[in-house]
């Protein structure tokens, strides 16, 4: 039981954030996270990569939810931002308004890009892990992430200059 207690502490918020991207509803997201933890306890995943396994479980749980027509209708009628996605660190210089803008910018991404942004930035998965979670290649995951970041930059930093990468 210690195992999932630690996972809950470490990954719970990020899993919830990821589930919200896929469900659009805080209630459905909680259901998906609960199912993910229950799957972990049932199947006892390999301890070497529980993080990626948990995100995969959340994704599968959301897929299961999608099979219910009623859930789909409820989800469509629910405002995606029915609860705050992020909490601002106390020592942060960001304003609440800025945090809300970031939320809206992330919410405005296509789902295929949005889930990769969440997995990469807040789930702290590597691109190979993301590829396994989403059943895509790591190159595809990386390119979708780059497109997503550029979109966010366009919305959040209109005057921004192109950034240099480590390969430049």
């Amino acid at each position: 039981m210690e195992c999932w207690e630690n996972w809950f502490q470490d990954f719970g918020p990020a899993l919830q954030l990821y589930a919200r991207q896929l469900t659009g509803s805080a209630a459905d997201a909680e259901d998906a996270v609960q199912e993910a933890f229950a799957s972990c306890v049932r199947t006892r995943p390999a301890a070497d990569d529980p993080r990626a396994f948990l995100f995969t479980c959340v994704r599968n749980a959301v897929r299961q939810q999608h099979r219910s027509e009623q859930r789909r209708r409820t989800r469509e009628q629910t405002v995606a931002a029915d609860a705050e996605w992020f909490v601002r660190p106390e020592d942060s210089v960001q304003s609440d308004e800025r945090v809300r803008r970031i939320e809206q910018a992330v919410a405005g991404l296509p789902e295929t890009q949005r889930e990769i942004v969440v997995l990469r930035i807040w789930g702290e998965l590597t691109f190979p892990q993301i590829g396994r979670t989403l059943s895509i290649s790591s190159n595809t995951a990386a390119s979708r992430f780059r497109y997503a970041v550029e979109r966010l930059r366009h919305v959040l930093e209109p005057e921004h200059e192109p950034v240099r990468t480590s390969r430049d």
Partner: protein
Amino acid sequence: MTEHDDPIDDPLLEELRSLRPAPLPPAFRKRLSRPLEPRRDGGSRSTAKAFGVVAAAAACGLAALVTWWTLPRPLPIDEEIADRPPRPAPADDAPAEPRHVRASVWSYHLAVGTSMDEFESLLTDDADRLLPGVGSVEIADVRSIDH
């Protein structure tokens, strides 16, 4: 560094990373711990539920079988006939006992269209031919016959 590494010194990514995902609601932890508790019997809930349904159905079936088995059943036809007392054999030489017949003429009256008088005379005149062995015939009043 690989080709998949994020841009270095990207203030936007740093800003995004500085945000922390909102924590799960406090009640969620309690909700979460319920299904995660290990079951003492080691079985899943769905298995236990399925077993309960099967057991209940078996109990109902057994009760119905016992009820049916203990219900009084009619005797088989052969046994019923064997239990009857034997009928006395008719004596061939016994004289026929004159019987009294109370004739109901309602249906005949309606079907043939004869009057009551005509029917009565018919029965009186030809009683021996029409009703052999009948000693007497009483023609009941049509209106008094209870149908």
